[in-house]
């Protein structure tokens, strides 16, 4: 077989065997059904009004027309959506959420992973249980509680991005704690003990030894918490009423439900919301894929 000369048919017959054929068909099926919606989203964002309103779907837009993006960003457009504000709102919520959740979780999970103290098991099991808790269950008491507290202290609960960040802690902190605790436990205690004997305090050990060793975990946890806040829909839907305060998901929902449907605008906004996440994910896939099975994205 090795040095035998074969004709084209022979080569083809070698190459096309049944297993390989089925394998390729299934792979292509998977890839098209995954990629088509993404293609449709991006390509549709470049379609004109005529192309989206036609009797037949337009599979390939005639050119890179920016009509939809102009409606989102151009103040002179008759139905200007001011989407820039929504992007900034989303960032205003998701960056603080990620930072606060990671900082608090680093401290908390270090304590859980390294120290023995009373109530630790209870705390751990509590966190694990919380992890499985429905968000829709918490929103009612949170809403009632925060309304009450806001009333007492004289701040507005609705349309307050800081309140939204606070409520996102209930979704991100348990995940971050869970992932970081698991990670810290894999760092051998001996390294830290050596530093302690050298006269470092615990906090110095955390800062100089543990954190530098945990950079991959820190990156993936920050990105997951960032993504949770970036994508969050239900809490934002309930807490935000003013369109100037909307985060992207709520804004996209509003544009979609507009009496005059403009799918190209919805797709343009969705593209803007999705592409950064996909790029972020692809560039850090090495760190992130592992976190997914650890439950980085709940849901």
């Amino acid at each position: 077989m090795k040095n035998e000369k074969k004709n084209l048919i022979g080569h083809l017959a070698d190459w096309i065997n049944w297993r390989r054929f089925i394998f390729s068909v299934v792979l292509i099926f998977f890839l098209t059904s995954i990629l088509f919606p993404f293609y449709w989203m991006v390509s549709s964002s470049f379609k004109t009004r005529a192309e989206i309103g036609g009797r037949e779907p337009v599979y390939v837009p005639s050119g890179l027309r920016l009509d939809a993006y102009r409606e989102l960003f151009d103040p002179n457009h008759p139905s200007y959506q001011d989407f820039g504000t929504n992007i900034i709102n989303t960032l205003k919520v998701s960056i603080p959420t990620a930072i606060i959740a990671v900082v608090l979780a680093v401290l908390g999970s270090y304590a859980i992973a390294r120290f023995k103290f009373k109530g630790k098991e209870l705390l751990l099991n509590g966190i694990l249980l919380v992890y499985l808790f429905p968000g829709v269950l918490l929103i009612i008491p949170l809403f009632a509680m925060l309304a009450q507290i806001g009333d007492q202290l004289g701040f507005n609960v609705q349309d307050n991005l800081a309140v939204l960040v606070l409520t996102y802690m209930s979704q991100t902190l348990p995940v971050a704690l869970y992932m970081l605790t698991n990670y810290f436990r894999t760092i051998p205690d001996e390294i830290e003990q050596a530093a302690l004997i050298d006269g470092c305090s615990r906090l110095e050990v955390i800062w100089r030894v543990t954190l530098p060793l945990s950079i991959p975990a820190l990156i993936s946890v920050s990105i997951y918490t960032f993504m949770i806040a970036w994508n969050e829909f239900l809490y934002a839907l309930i807490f935000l009423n003013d369109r100037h305060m909307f985060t992207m998901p709520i804004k996209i929902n509003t544009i979609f439900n507009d009496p005059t449907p403009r799918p190209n605008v919805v797709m343009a906004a969705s593209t803007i919301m999705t592409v950064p996440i996909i790029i972020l994910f692809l560039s850090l896939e090495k760190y992130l894929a592992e976190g997914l099975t650890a439950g980085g994205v709940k849901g």
Partner: protein
Amino acid sequence: MSIAGTKKVKSRKAQEARLAWILISPTALIVFGLVIFPAIFSIWVSFHDVGLNNLNDVFHAPFVGFENYREVINDYAFKFQGLNNWGAAVTTIVYSFASTSLAVLVGLAASLLLNRPFKGRGVARAIFLFPYVAPIVSIAFVWRWILDPRPSGVVNDILMSLNLIELPKAYLATRGLSLLIVILLDAWRYFPFCMLMILARLQAIDNTLYEAAKVDGANAIQQFFAITLPELRYVLGATFLLRLMWTFNKFDDIFLYTGGGFGTKVLPVLTYEFSFRLYDFGRGAATAMILLLILALFMTLYVTTVMKNVED
């Protein structure tokens, strides 16, 4: 060890315990204030009449006993009323079991696919994760537009040009069909999670098992049933239960696909409607508690079977 030494160790221990509490207190405070207390508080709310009118004085809301629960259970949107109207309770169970099973099956297929070495496997694996990573809002609206009920919808266009259907269909606005479509869409979105879980286990299977089977003359299908499936048994169960619990709680997907209409109303959507459309928070909380009760059943199952298996 001298007495002074013991003392030193003891005080060191006490010091560490104190530091532990200092480190953990902000987290503990937030977890308690934003998760544990609200969870307990929602039990309280479910037994009281809480509406918009007394929201600013919630702790003096009148106690109504099981009235909220009675209302939910007798609500036409909750109760099973025959095959044409399943009600939210039955719909939730059917939806979560069906979409979870499908997601696990598709995930299994995908992981078997990616377990074989081929050119571009890394890229393929990354692409396979897209549905799970992308924001649900964008995903939902893309699919809604692909499934558009007009003849210009992509699915209608394709199926009509293939002569598989004569008239355009309203996929997300037809009783029965909508639930099926939502289940399929959920399997599409959540299979990557199952795939990753299964793939990790697949790669840990001892290769000598397969070599031994080959020597014995087992073909690929026999190998799959004799080696792969038994080795995956545990991870399949764990993935299924975890996804089942998450699907059970899912609000976003169905709310965005159908708004809970056309026979797709699940308990989380019903909870939302009672609380934030009718502003009857007591009834909403009661619905959530019923949801939680069913969930607790699954959780117990998870803890007793899966966690126990981990220990073994």
